[in-house]
């Protein structure tokens, strides 16, 4: 047992070496700068995924790229180094208490970050004034969904798996769906008259074109042009299109009993409770078009627990309920009634930054006080020596 502990200590001491930190920190800074500058061209979400959410990434001009360790690798090494330093190299004395506390705080912060990365789920809930909803839509994931007659999804394909010429057999029916054109970000234009044959409305008048991805992921208009084959009714066979947010997705009467709806939509998940929007308010700074406050007056309707209660959500004043946090995120005043957009986050690691910040600050203050007291003593000593 002693031998195992000694070996463990040896490995730990080696992994806790300050040289590791000496090289990891500049790498971390370089990655931080690269990932930040990259946001200018590829947007925040893509840069986040590529530089901070991967184990490695490629840099350099298109003709000559080299792999470099990305966020997960660097943070992993940092975490191991910090943990080993904390466990095996800490000098457990009052004089070092500030330093130990701040290191523990950083450890807690990084641990919280890992927890968040692994467990947090983000999305948004859009609800009109007077309406209620429990559907949270994802900011980034889109799905191709085929709904049956009762409105139940029976085919769901994530957008990452969609591509040109993808052939999809629809279960329990003789129909196939072939994707002719998939665009992660589509631009819409008029379809020339010469190309309208075989198209069903409104695809006969409009067409989707592949466009470069927008650097803001939410702005990308994902869509498909597709062909339906195999339906007994020849009128059903033909070409269609649909895209995320399309108000009139194709609805096909396959036979007398079966009707399918083909939609491209943001990935959805239900909340265990519903949110009813009582009223949405936007206060403006007088004489400007700048808002000073956004407020959603809502009612939580929880049938599982029987909790029904009114609540107010404002900027910087979210509502926390059953592990979910609802934030005032956006709004839409263009329709016949106001809609509020609430960001919904479920993050099991959210308490860690709060604890970590307190511990780090406390540690640094203790360290500083000890240091300043030491300085005072040494100054007196120097004066006395003179």
């Amino acid at each position, binding site marked *: 047992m002693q031998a195992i502990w000694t070996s463990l200590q040896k490995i730990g001491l080696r992994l806790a070496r300050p040289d590791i930190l000496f090289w990891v920190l500049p790498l971390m800074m370089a990655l*931080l700068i690269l990932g930040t500058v990259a946001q200018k061209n590829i947007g925040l979400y893509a840069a986040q995924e590529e530089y901070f959410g991967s184990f490695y990434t490629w840099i350099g001009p298109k003709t000559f790229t080299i792999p470099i360790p990305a966020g997960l690798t660097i943070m992993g090494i940092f975490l191991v180094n910090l943990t080993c330093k904390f466990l095996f190299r800490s000098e457990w004395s009052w004089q070092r208490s500030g330093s130990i506390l701040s290191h523990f705080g950083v450890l807690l912060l990084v641990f919280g970050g890992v927890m968040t990365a692994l467990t947090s789920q983000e999305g948004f809930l859009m609800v009109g004034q007077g309406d209620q909803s429990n559907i949270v839509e994802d900011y980034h994931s889109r799905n191709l969904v085929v709904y049956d007659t009762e409105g139940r999804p029976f085919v769901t394909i994530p957008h990452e798996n969609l591509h040109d010429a993808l052939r999809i057999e629809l279960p329990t029916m003789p129909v196939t769906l072939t994707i002719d054109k998939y665009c992660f970000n589509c631009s819409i234009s008029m379809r020339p008259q010469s190309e309208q044959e075989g198209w069903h409305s409104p695809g006969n008048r409009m067409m989707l074109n592949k466009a470069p991805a927008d650097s803001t992921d939410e702005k990308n208009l994902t869509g498909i042009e597709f062909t339906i084959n195999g339906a007994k009714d020849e009128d059903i066979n033909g070409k269609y299109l649909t895209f995320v947010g399309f108000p009139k997705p194709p609805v096909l009467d396959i036979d007398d009993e079966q009707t399918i709806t083909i939609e491209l939509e943001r990935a959805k998940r239900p909340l265990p409770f519903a949110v009813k929007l009582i009223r949405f308010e936007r206060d403006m700074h007088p004489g400007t078009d700048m808002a000073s406050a*956004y407020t959603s007056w809502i009612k939580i309707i929880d049938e599982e627990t029987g909790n029904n209660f009114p609540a107010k959500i404002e900027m910087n004043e979210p509502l926390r309920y059953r592990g979910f946090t609802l934030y005032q995120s956006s709004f839409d005043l263009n329709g016949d009634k106001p809609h509020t957009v609430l*960001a919904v986050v479920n993050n099991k690691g959210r308490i860690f930054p709060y604890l970590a910040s307190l511990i780090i600050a406390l540690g640094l203050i203790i360290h500083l006080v000890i240091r300043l007291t030491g300085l005072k003593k040494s100054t007196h000593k120097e004066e006395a020596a003179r």
Partner: protein
Amino acid sequence: MKHFLFAFFLMTLSFLYVSNLVWAQEQKISPLSIEKFKALPIMHEGRLKPIETFAQAELVRFSGKQSFEHQDATTWLAHTVFDPATASNDRIFKIENSEIRHLMGLEERKKPLYAFTELTKGLQKTFPTVEQLINVPKQNLSSEQTALLTLHENALEYTQLLRSLSLLLPLNVDLPDQYKEEINPETVNYLVLKKHAIDIEDSIRNIIDTKGNNPETYSEKEQRIAILGLQIRTIESAAEGNSLFRVIPSPINDGDYLAPWELIQSGQATWESSPVIKEWELLAQSWRETDTTTWNKTTQSLLNQAKIKTTPELLYNKIKPFQTSLIFYAFSFLLALASITFHHKRSLSWLSIFAAIIAITLEAGGVCTRIIVLNRPPVGTLYESILFVGLVAPLFALLMEWRMKNLLGLLSAGFVGTTIGLLALSMADEGDNMKVLSAVLNTQFWLTTHVLCITIGYGWCLVTSVIAHMLLLGQALGRLTKDIIKNLQHAQNTLAITALLFTATGTILGGIWADQSWGRFWGWDPKENGALLIVLWLVWIIHSRIAGQFTSTQATMGYAFLSVIVGTAWIGVNLLGVGLHSYGFTEGLFWGLGLFTLLEAGLITTLSLIIRKKTLA
């Protein structure tokens, strides 16, 4: 004591001298006293401010200057709103772009200033182009196109100003005989005519019913009625949406102010607002007639009714604390430098200390006034963060001087105060830079905790960097004793840990704010990454020094380079134009930051090479 009194006396004299320079601008040009008028409140860009601030912002917008032909901005504004017919001949539009001048058909002048009346033809000619440009994204516009758009926007704003009181000003109309008994043709204005508008409309309707739409078939009397009706409608339509000059308290929304036309056209005018309208009418009349008694009485009456006291802001405008403090910081720096050069001459040291204290007091006064006026913590914009760092960084350097007593802290205070003061001057928005905040920033708690914490961290970082520069410079020149070097190294290490305390806590608090507002603690936003960069840099230098990977000189080089790291995190990341904290790309700023980085890298490397050479020798 003798040195202290001498220094105190000299600084008092210089303070009075500079104050006099500042206040000397308040010489009256107009025969009417403008003092009370400039204190009247106006609602502009979301907040109530004195008319003086509004006038300065507008004049700077059009002409780039805060005065017009030896008149202060408020006098120019009064002339513009009370006497628009002559004011439109004032040459206040600065058009620097030669292509725009050519496009507008304007003659070349030594000073490219033009009157509104000179622009009207060119504005009409270029209007179709502007209509197309409005729909083009700003980043796709050329500098000429941007200048043309700006000119049209300014011209539109100016016409709103010219017409802001047109409902109260006398009209040059030919009154039909039946109204001459009831209406005095000398003083007739829109409001008077409006009382007869229904009668006039009925008369016109009767004329059209009997004689049709062709005015040539009307009698002379009928033509005069038709023309009067047309004039009323023209005045009304020209004033549609004119909500710039919001000086009338809203009878409905307490605390809000409305423009006179806005009040009338929105149907909000009540018996409560009627006397205020009447007083503005009197004000306009007394301005044109130079009637001092009525002017003074009316401005006083309007001031008595004001819902806020604008005195603090007027004082702020008068003293210009941040510009004035810059002079004192520069004095302090030069005096500290002279004191070091002349072997720590005490009178010079005291003078330098007094200058720094006056500068810090002025800045603190300025920051406090902004807190009172804006009713929020002092930092909400990038510009305000510069002002705040300009206050705290010299204060921290003075604290270091108090501990070290070797004039280097004093020298740092003067240097950092002057450089940040200059940066603030270059970053100041034209016109009014006291801005209201967007909804997400509209929170007292987070502005007080996160924002102040991080900006104080910037302040400590800059002082650390300046002290490190001095250490490098002193060692390279061989002017520092071993004791002073040791003392400075200890000081910079303590400063670095303090900077780390504030930047790390501030960064984490920012994360918590983001968690409260957007639902995520960390989103890799450029500003967040910038703050993290400072923290990582400090952690790297501090740990590498402790673990022995860096020598003392290398650690000092790292601390000195903090200025670049802070500059990049504080201002540089905003230049990317992405993320939640971006303030837009400014080309000058980009090159400035690039040049600063190169200069700093060059300076620090050169100094360290000299030190290395000396050590080896």
